[in-house]
């Protein structure tokens, strides 16, 4: 009963190809899904709205970026700009009377078109130069959004999201917004899990590992990379739109600045490149740990254990955040997903040390 690999003998291809071939994993996924569905009942509104909801949406965004960085090996330092394009397009579409469902798609398409245009320019080069090109994209998009009043509603302005409904469900209550975010995150998760097994996902992985070797076996690197940019930008755009409608409620250009791009890259790296569970862990870790640690130190200082100046306390989140990135890169480059995987593998064969086969 403890040995979780017991009785797992694949006798047919469909059984071997399942997403979760191990029964224990299926139970785990089912349990997490049930908890996620029941979260509005289980968790108080304060925690649901300010922790669980952003965590889910940022997970979807991190998964979109992980598709590009983890599967495709293409660095993108302007992903917040992609999300901004999605958010602003969808808001303007709903304001023009387009139903929310189509506005979400429209935001994704706009982000995909602009993201791919920059990608086509940037994909001629690799590595460092791709970082710089996407960095330039971030600044350009930021500037256009801030300085074109038709987009941002004037400089320094916040653009409120109109009241909308999703599939006849009005998005006023927190629960409704939570379920929309949950739906999108689940969709992204399933997409990510499955794309790894398609020809597209395998082509991407081949290019990540060695692009000219991939070209030799008949994968067109430019086309595949461009498709990866398009897919990731589409998903990022929709995530941005969901973030605007379900969490922020109003958008300003600063919400999608360069720091947010770095935060997204940090989520992907801390979680683990190209890993689905890593997307969840990374988003949660990057969002929560600086808050928790800062509160902890503020609490300790309040109790008189240590003395922290006001000024230092204000900078603590940045310090933790930078230290976290450095620490993970040095000590666990494969991120939280690898730590989870080690623990899981240990318990999978417990009480034995090895699975034997």
């Amino acid at each position, binding site marked *: 009963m403890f040995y979780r690999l017991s009785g797992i003998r694949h006798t047919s291809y469909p059984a071997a190809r399942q997403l979760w071939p191990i029964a224990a994993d299926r139970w785990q996924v089912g349990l997490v899904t049930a908890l996620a569905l029941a979260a509005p009942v289980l968790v108080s509104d304060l925690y649901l709205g300010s922790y669980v909801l952003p965590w889910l949406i940022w997970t979807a965004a991190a998964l979109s970026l992980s598709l590009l960085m983890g599967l495709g090996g293409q660095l993108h330092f302007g992903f917040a700009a992609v999300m901004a394009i999605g958010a602003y397009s969808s808001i303007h579409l709903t304001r023009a009377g387009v139903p929310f469902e189509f506005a979400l798609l429209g935001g994704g398409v706009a982000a995909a078109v602009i993201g791919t245009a920059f990608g086509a320019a940037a994909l001629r080069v690799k590595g460092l130069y791709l970082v710089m090109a996407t960095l330039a994209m971030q600044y350009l998009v930021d500037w256009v959004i801030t300085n074109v009043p038709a987009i941002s509603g004037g400089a320094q302005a916040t653009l409120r999201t109109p009241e909308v409904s999703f599939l006849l469900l009005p998005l006023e209550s927190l629960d409704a917004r939570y379920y929309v975010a949950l739906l999108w995150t689940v969709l992204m998760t399933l997409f990510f899990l499955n794309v790894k097994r398609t020809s597209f996902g395998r082509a991407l992985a081949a290019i990540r590992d060695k692009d000219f070797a991939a070209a030799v076996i008949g994968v067109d690197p430019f086309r595949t990379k461009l498709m990866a940019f398009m897919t990731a930008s589409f998903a990022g755009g929709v995530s941005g739109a969901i973030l605007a409608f379900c969490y922020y409620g109003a958008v300003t250009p600063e919400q999608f600045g360069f720091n947010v791009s770095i935060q997204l890259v940090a989520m992907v790296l801390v979680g683990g490149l190209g890993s689905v569970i890593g997307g969840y862990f990374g988003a949660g870790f990057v969002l929560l740990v600086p808050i928790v640690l800062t509160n902890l130190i503020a609490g300790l200082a309040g109790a008189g254990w240590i003395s922290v100046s006001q000024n230092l306390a204000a900078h603590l989140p940045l310090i933790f955040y930078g230290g976290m990135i450095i620490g993970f890169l*040095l000590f666990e480059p494969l991120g939280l997903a690898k730590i989870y995987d080690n623990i899981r593998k240990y318990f999978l064969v417990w009480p034995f040390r090895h699975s034997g086969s």
Partner: protein
Amino acid sequence: MAYFIELLVNGALVGLMYALAALGFVLIYKSAGVPNLAQGALVMMAAYLVWYLGSLGLPIWIAIAVGAALMFGFGLLVERLLLRRMVGQPVIMVVMLTLGMEILLRGLIPGVFGAAPKPLDLGIGLAPVIVADVFMNRAYLIGGLVAVLLIAASMLFFRTRLGTKLRAVSDDHVASWAVGLSVERAIGLSWGIAGIAAVGAGVLWGSVQGVDWTLSTLLFPAIAVVILGGVDSIKGVLVGGLAVGILGSVIPGYLDAMVGGSTRDVVTSVIILLTILVRPHGIFGREDIERI
């Protein structure tokens, strides 16, 4: 016309000071092949250090000298503790490591020394220099001159015995090992020298705009400078700095009034994008960037 020349001259001087911030980036990339995105934070840290030493009562010149020594040591330390463990890792890891360092320093240094802008007085004075009806910012003028001197000095340095070793290491790590050069020491040394270059940039920029965290945003124009000039060329830093400075001064000088926004970042972004599109290795860079 006078307005144009004024923009041109001041832009060129600012560009030279950008070049100084970019120098450290090039030094490290040239020797170790590491893109150092923490150079902006190093500049900020150097400025804070010199300000702090000055506030302890040291004369400014001694503060700068001590600051340079400390930053040299810090550069060595960073290389030894962080970057050496990253040898052989993909470029994304190295980029993210330096970026993590940038974020850490951007929190730690203002957190410890105070976030409010601090004055750093070099005794330059504020009165503009007027040459034939053209107003020149005195601080920029001196900054530009110092930048040219420092860049020239580093070009000469690469002709010395030690500099030749560094060039050999930057050419080929394995071949350098084969002839008995210590690659590790050379890379550490280039981090140290980048720290000294950061002191130059930090002191000059700190005296112009005050010492606070915004000094680390110099990273963006510095990146444009190195991309345009060629990421492994010191000559390129000089030319790229002049170009980025002049374009970033003249174009916003006319365009800002029309679109009503600071277009300097846009000009910088467009320079980066166009360079990557047209000539990814920059003006003087070596053309060995892998393409697909």
